[in-house]
């Protein structure tokens, strides 16, 4: 009953005309961002966040807008997977297997339709799951002391490092690099300035928005410029019929249900994320349903299962995000940074009781967003195909200019543009060297929490480092962190193939 009241309060806040309009704009912008190959969901959310500050939106409205961008971009990413064989992010990689084959056979409309229906069903189911699982789990985290919070941050680092690329060493290198960036600035406890090299601006520390835009947006432009020099190009397919028949829908219902259940529970596990959910559900569906060997050749169930799973996992992954502060992907890492900048620290308290208005408004907005995406996407399929025809020579400058505005608006400082450019170059080099970018952001965002809890723990224990290994809870979290770090290897043993290689070879952002 308590949940129902909270949810009703959330709906009351989410269904104001302003917030509905923001959800609509967010879904549209997000889908556009997801559809355009130049901008991924991480970049989109990172670029838009500073712009929301200039709009003077309150925290709830900002979250609704950015969360809608997130859902929209997920759907948009699936659209390019189906139409172009270009996954917008890692979670839609597996959709290309059958989705693109369907598009090649002139069935892009049906693939997009089942993707929208599956995403809607799974998204709604996962929000109900979040509502049921979130509050009790969040209650447990209130019992965490500084050593446990320190270990949870370590778990979050293990999480992102494990799935972000081929090499665990490079994943860890990226996280530690990010933590190093978090050390830049004035130490709040002692007032000592660290790694500022006499630059006043650096005393405030590194702003994650500037770093995120540099690492993702600018490096993306540089990468695409290199591709342009190579002269890679090909025409794309056009969708014809955009609705599916009842028979096609009925044929896919089992895949949608199984995908939703698998996706949600996989999403609950810290570090597994939407990508693993998509691969697992596709694998299961193939074993259960592929009697005629049609998977991989344009089977509608091969789209329905992973699309449902990755959307359910995205909802499921909000449970560890909101309760423990552990994001399951680069985009949720950015969302975590935004929550922290609003003064909400998941994992450091019970966000469901500390900030109920905000959290329940966010959950209610997810329902609204799901409905909105379903209603929007069918009429807009043909428009999306047309959007793909925006020439790269206009799109790339546009992305850069929007990035400049986003970065400049943070502090009205042109030095930030220089910092963004430096991180754009670093991002380009890291992409080339297959060093994942999302863990850098993660290290930067959580580095401060890591240090504060590290210090508090050692102050309380009189400098005894064994405090981090005392008690069953610390040891359990550490054990989970080690398991999560080696999860791709464990899954590879189970599945007989290399999960990481599939992500890395796809070229998708994690």
């Amino acid at each position: 009953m308590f949940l129902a009241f909270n949810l009703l309060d959330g709906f009351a806040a989410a269904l104001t005309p302003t917030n509905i309009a923001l959800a609509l704009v967010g879904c549209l912008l997000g889908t556009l961002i997801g559809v355009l190959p130049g901008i991924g969901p991480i970049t989109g959310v990172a670029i838009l966040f500073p712009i929301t500050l200039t709009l003077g939106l309150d925290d709830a409205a900002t979250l609704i807008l950015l969360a809608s961008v997130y859902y929209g971009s997920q759907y948009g990413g699936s659209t390019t997977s189906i139409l172009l064989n270009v996954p917008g992010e890692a979670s839609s990689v597996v959709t290309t297997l059958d989705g693109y084959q369907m598009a090649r056979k002139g069935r892009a409309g049906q693939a997009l339709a089942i993707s929208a229906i599956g995403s809607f069903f799974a998204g709604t189911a996962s929000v109900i799951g979040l509502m049921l699982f979130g509050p009790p789990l969040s209650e447990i985290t209130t019992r965490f002391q500084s050593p446990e919070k320190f270990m949870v941050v370590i778990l979050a680092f293990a999480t992102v490092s494990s799935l972000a690329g081929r090499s665990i060493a490079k994943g860890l290198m990226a996280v530690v690099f990010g933590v190093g960036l978090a050390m830049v600035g004035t130490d709040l406890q002692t007032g000592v300035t660290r790694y500022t090299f006499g630059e006043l601006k650096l005393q405030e520390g590194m702003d994650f928005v500037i770093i995120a835009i540099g690492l993702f947006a600018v490096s993306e432009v540089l990468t695409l410029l290199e591709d342009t020099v190579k002269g890679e190009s090909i025409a794309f397919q056009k969708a014809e019929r955009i609705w599916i028949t009842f028979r096609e829908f009925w044929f896919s219902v089992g895949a949608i249900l199984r995908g939703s259940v698998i996706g949600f529970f996989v999403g609950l596990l810290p570090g597994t994320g939407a990508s693993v959910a998509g691969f697992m559900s596709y694998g299961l569906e193939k074993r259960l349903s592929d009697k005629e060997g049609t998977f991989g050749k344009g089977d509608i169930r091969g789209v329905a299962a992973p699309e449902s799973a990755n959307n359910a996992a995205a909802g499921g992954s909000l449970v560890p995000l909101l309760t423990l502060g552990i994001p399951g992907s680069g985009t949720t890492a950015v969302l975590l940074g935004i929550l922290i900048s609003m003064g909400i620290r998941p994992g450091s308290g019970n966000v469901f009781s500390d900030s109920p208005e905000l959290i329940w408004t966010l959950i209610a907005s997810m329902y609204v967003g799901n409905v909105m995406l379903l209603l929007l996407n069918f009429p807009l399929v043909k428009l999306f195909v047309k959007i793909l025809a925006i020439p790269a020579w206009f799109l790339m400058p546009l992305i850069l200019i929007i990035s400049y505005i986003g970065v400049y608006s943070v502090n009205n400082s042109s030095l930030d543009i220089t910092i963004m450019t430096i991180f754009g170059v670093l991002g380009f080099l890291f992409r080339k060297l297959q060093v994942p970018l999302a863990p850098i952001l993660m290290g930067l965002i959580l580095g401060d929490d890591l240090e504060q809890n590290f210090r508090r723990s050692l102050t309380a224990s009189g400098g005894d480092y064994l405090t981090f290994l005392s008690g069953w809870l610390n040891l359990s979290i550490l054990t989970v962190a080690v398991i999560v770090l080696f999860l791709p290897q464990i899954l590879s043993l189970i599945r007989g193939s290399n999960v990481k290689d599939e992500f890395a070879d796809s070229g998708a952002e994690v």
Partner: protein
Amino acid sequence: MSDSDSSFAPGHRGVSGGDPPSATEAEGESGSQVSGKWNDRILGLAGLAISVAFVAESRSFTVVGDLGGPVGPSTLPTAVGILFGAISIAVFLLAEDGPSWPTKSAWWQICLVIVSSYIYGQVLEFLGFIVASTAMAIVVGALFRAPMQRLVPMAFVFCVGMAYVFNNWLSLSLPDGWWGGF
């Protein structure tokens, strides 16, 4: 706007602009392969150098008295630096085959974007958002092989539109510069 203006490559995240390169150019644009595992080895060595500098700098973080408690401002930076060094050694030892690097001409173009971006930051407040951003858009668009007769007006209209929206609707003051703004 024709399809040939822009097209997206299946299986790649790339986007290509206007005219395709000539056959000779395309053959020469396959990207250079730095031999074997030297990319990761260089990355590992660079990481190690950074970690040494990071730890060395951290030794200068001192506080007077007992302000820092048992953990001073240098404790975690030192630990982070040492860990980064250890990971860098692991990257060096576990080196994988290198990526395909951009060709010389691609590097030039990439450097041009980087330098332009730096100059943009330096002149933004003097020239103003509209002039600086239009110029930047033209430079970047040209590198993506834009037809100039279309790019220049589109870039100008876009920048004027953005300046108007941000200055008037969103109350964000983008720099006007000597040219003026809204």
